[in-house]
């Protein structure tokens, strides 16, 4: 087995990995390598052929392939090394990585710092327990997206979409543009779970029927999907008897959530936050294991790729710092961040105050329930509001962010607890 050393090793060549690796080089790391399982870089972006990417990072409205192309060129110009068709098999807590590479065979890499950038995966049908038969014609929205946009296959002609996540809405439009009929989009929650703009340009623009508080309670068909039975649900998601409706269709697409992909993180013993499904991170995107950092959707699922790239730039910077100088001096007792009233989760979950002095800290949170009126989102310490933000509304589909700086730090002491919450205006 060949052994290699490098300064920063990044696992995954999607938007997070590309940005982390580029920034690691620009922050001074000599040897930066990205391992990518696929033969194409960009992660999910090559199949996201729609526009809307890059508005905040590049100031232009790009498609997924264009956005990926820009980052691939930036990474190559920065001198990042890539090993594609390479799958990581093992990581241990000393950051030893074993991978199977089509070009190099079995290799061992010993980096000074490691960045986890494996992204997320779609929640599959098995996780939903929809009763009924198991015919062909049930796909996750992302699988259908790959079939239509990269492989040139139409999954079906009459389509029902379960879940109103962004990929589901984007696919509703895509299937319509390709000549299929989207019979219905169903959402179990009382509100749409994706972005508002997608509701307009993907659903309303094409008069696609949308039913809220509704789910699929049966799939019918022996070899191929022939129909789905839908039911309205009550506030505890229980089907309401008598509300059933049969929708004839040949395809059911599932857009029912994304889950951070952390099989490798768990293997090496990185502590996972049950609320995010991703590693617990500090203000430098460091995980519970020194020298192992995490960036992008592996940490928590973002709404926008620009935000994935931005978080990965920060993680890449700190990974380069660690590779050069080791762990920064710490005061030992970190400040803890946790979710309070109507907040689902907060990232980072800890921060040491030294981080704030150096660079400031970017805090991201997601609310639990939509608030459709002006609302304050706050970080509170011991009853004192440390930072507050007035929003015109707060929705689970739209992440809220804060920048903490030295001024905020002066109000905190090591070991303090910061609670994220919403409050009435």
């Amino acid at each position, binding site marked *: 087995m060949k052994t290699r050393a490098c300064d920063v090793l990044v696992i995954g060549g999607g938007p997070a990995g590309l940005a982390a690796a580029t920034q690691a080089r620009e922050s001074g790391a000599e040897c930066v390598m990205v391992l990518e399982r696929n033969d194409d870089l960009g992660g999910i972006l090559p199949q996201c*052929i*729609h526009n809307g990417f890059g508005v905040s990072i590049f100031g232009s409205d790009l498609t997924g*392939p264009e956005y990926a192309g820009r980052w691939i060129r930036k990474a190559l110009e920065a001198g990042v090394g890539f090993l594609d068709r390479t799958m990581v098999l093992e990581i241990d807590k000393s950051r030893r990585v074993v991978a199977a590479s089509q070009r190099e065979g079995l290799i061992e890499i010993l980096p000074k710092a490691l960045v986890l950038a494996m992204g997320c995966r779609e929640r599959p049908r098995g996780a939903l327990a929809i009763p009924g038969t198991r015919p062909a014609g049930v796909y996750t929205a992302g699988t259908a997206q790959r079939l239509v946009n990269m492989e040139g296959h139409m999954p079906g002609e009459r389509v029902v979409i379960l879940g109103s996540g962004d990929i589901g809405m984007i696919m509703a439009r895509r299937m319509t*543009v390709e000549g299929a009929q989207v019979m219905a989009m169903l959402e179990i929650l009382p509100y749409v779970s994706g972005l508002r703009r997608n509701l307009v*340009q993907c659903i309303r623009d094409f008069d696609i029927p949308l039913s809220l508080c509704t789910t699929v309670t049966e799939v019918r068909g022996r070899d191929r999907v022939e129909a789905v039975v839908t039911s309205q649900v009550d506030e505890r998601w229980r089907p309401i008897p008598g509300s059933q409706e049969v929708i004839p269709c040949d395809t059911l697409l599932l857009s029912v959530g994304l889950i951070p992909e952390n099989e490798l993180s768990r293997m090496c013993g990185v502590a996972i936050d049950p609320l995010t499904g991703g590693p617990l991170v500090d203000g430098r995107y460091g995980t519970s294991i020194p020298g192992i950092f995490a960036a992008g959707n592996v940490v928590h699922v973002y709404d926008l790729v620009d935000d994935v790239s931005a978080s990965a730039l920060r993680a890449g910077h700190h990974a380069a710092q660690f590779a050069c100088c080791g762990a920064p001096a710490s005061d030992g007792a970190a400040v803890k961040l946790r979710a309070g009233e109507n907040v689902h989760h907060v990232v980072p979950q800890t921060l040491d105050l030294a981080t704030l002095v150096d660079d400031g800290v970017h805090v991201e949170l997601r609310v639990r329930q939509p608030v459709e009126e002006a609302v304050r989102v706050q970080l509170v310490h011991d009853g004192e509001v440390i930072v507050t933000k007035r929003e015109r509304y707060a929705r689970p589909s739209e992440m809220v962010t804060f920048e903490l700086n030295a001024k905020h730090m002066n109000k905190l002491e090591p070991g303090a607890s910061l609670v994220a919450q919403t409050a009435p205006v």
Partner: protein
Amino acid sequence: MRETKEFICVTCPVGCTIQATIEDGELLNVEGNTCKRGIAFVQEELTAPRRTLCTTVRVHGGKLPLVPVRSEEPLPKGRVLDVAAALRDVLLDAPVTEGQIVLPDALGTGVDIRATRDMPVA
């Protein structure tokens, strides 16, 4: 007659909800937009709405059988599906390069359709 209409701006991912006051087809006031592109969006929605089309075109002899394409500018909303249908009849030969025009002046709209990535020969 004066009326208030609600729009969700699709110009960028922020997706502002905009309340527009309209009298006899004329835009009097907008509220809720966080940038000036919101005003232009509402103005356009009232007169001649436009949307960007992103779809794929078949490629002969490429690494993949398709290449993604987009309209250089937003198309008149009512022409989006027609242009998409016209693009289904286009067959390109590999290699295709990012930015290459695959359908100039699509159906007389004045908007070019361009490839959004390279598609090398298989």
